[in-house]
């Protein structure tokens, strides 16, 4: 991740990113390309939505941008020293052997907050800020509900005040009321702290209320992108139209 301070307006600039996976099947190497020469920009302070059907490469793009998945060609810059991610699967995103206290304290320890009291205070504050109670501190992730787990992920990711948060379907595992709560919470925290959010979802309805801009991903390419209102009112790409129609937002 390069830290490019010359273009302060831009949070992410990606050019011609291609990612493919090589697997061995029956002793033969099979390569399938997931992202194809994908380019886009994201502005600072923006909530950018990334939509697309299952398997279109949303999570892969997120992981590539954070250096978790290797890219085959293309390049990108991220204008933040320590971007964080809320992972799609809240079960594998939290260390099963550790308590919530450890999970929330760890980012502070790593970033060098030496004072125990200070760390504990921040941990408690962050729990409150995601609407959870202190009693959860000594529990392990398996002893939390899905929604609680998702909030812990958000709290942990925001612990060190990142400039960029990539949230991969942070609410898809939750029921509708909790969804609204968590999203409202994210928006509130964003307003307070001013970070940017790359918001991944396949739910176009949620995106309409939550995002400033939306990109539609199809088979590893960006089919269409634009401001939410414009894109939802007047989609150009037939695939976007289809998505909007199947979500019941547009009539054909």
């Amino acid at each position, binding site marked *: 991740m390069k830290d490019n301070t010359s273009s302060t307006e831009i949070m992410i600039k990606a050019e011609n990113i291609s990612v493919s996976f090589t697997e061995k099947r029956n002793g033969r190497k099979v390569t399938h390309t997931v992202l194809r020469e994908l380019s886009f920009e994201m502005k600072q302070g923006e909530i950018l939505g990334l939509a697309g059907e299952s398997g279109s490469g949303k999570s892969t793009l997120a992981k590539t941008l954070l250096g978790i998945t290797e890219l085959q060609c293309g390049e990108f810059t991220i204008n933040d020293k320590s971007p964080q991610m809320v992972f799609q699967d809240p079960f594998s995103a939290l260390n099963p052997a550790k308590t919530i206290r450890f999970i929330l304290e760890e980012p502070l320890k*790593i970033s060098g907050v030496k004072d125990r009291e200070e760390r504990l205070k921040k941990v408690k504050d962050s729990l409150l800020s995601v609407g959870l109670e202190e009693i959860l501190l000594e529990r392990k992730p398996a002893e939390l509900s899905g929604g609680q787990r998702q909030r812990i992920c958000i709290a942990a990711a925001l612990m060190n005040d990142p400039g960029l948060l990539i949230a991969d379907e942070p609410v898809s595992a939750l029921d509708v009321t909790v969804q609204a709560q968590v999203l409202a919470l994210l928006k509130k925290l964003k307003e307070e702290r001013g970070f940017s959010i790359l918001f991944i979802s396949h739910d176009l309805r949620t995106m309409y209320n939550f995002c400033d801009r939306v990109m539609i991903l199809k088979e590893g390419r960006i089919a269409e992108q634009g401001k939410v209102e414009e894109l939802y009112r007047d989609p150009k790409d037939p695939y976007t139209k289809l998505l909007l129609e199947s979500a019941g937002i547009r009539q054909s």
Partner: protein
Amino acid sequence: MIKTVKKLFEKYKGFNFCAGLIITAVIFLIAVTGIFYTPYPSTAMNAALKNAAPGAAHIFGCDNYGRDIFSRVMEGIKNTFFISFFTVLLGSVAGMILGAVCGYYGGKLDNILMRLNDALFAFPSILLAMVIIALVGPGAFNVVLALGIAFIPSFARIVRAEFKKQASLDYIAGAKLMGAGDIRIMFVHILPNILPVLISSVMIGFNNAVLAEAGLSFLGIGVQPPEASLGRMLSEAQAFLFTAPWYAVFTGLSIALMVLGFALLSEGISEKK
């Protein structure tokens, strides 16, 4: 008091765990006591007591040199126990580091080290230990070295598989994003997750070490006489199976008990869930 403790154990860990713990505790006590006390000096010979039957003075009887078998069994348990302990310590710590590095980093290093590991693994560990002893010579320290090295591959394999599995999970990617260092990730984040697997393989490893140590000294290349060792005693007892059967019986029983205790214990631990 004892009853309530027992009940607690049974409730939480079941019969295997309790029985294993008791047997292992007794063995451990004997081993520790054997360091500084045996009823008779383990090497004191007495021609008048050659192959003497068990009695009040010599509860396990005497061997063909008139030495007190109980004292020698104690010393043998001590030797076997501590040799096995340090063998497993060496094998598991080295195997864990090797497996952790291979499983976590993967790539070329992993490929090379694991090929080597597989090559070693292809030999039965007792055979490998014999080769090493042939190179470095017998004696308690060398037995630990030889068996310890021979035990590395199996530990490395288990630990590597577990680390590989954990390293691909999102929480590790998350820890990296937070800026956690590799060493911290390996030993603070991943290790606690593989502890159950590690503990049960250490238990099994300990049993294998007991048997391997007994095997080596049975073959005469383990602990050297006049120091007592269970394997060597068992091998000597063969000649007197009919004149002094207690020799073989008590020696064999103590090996069996050591193994049984640990087998029950590891069984008990793994059935916790």
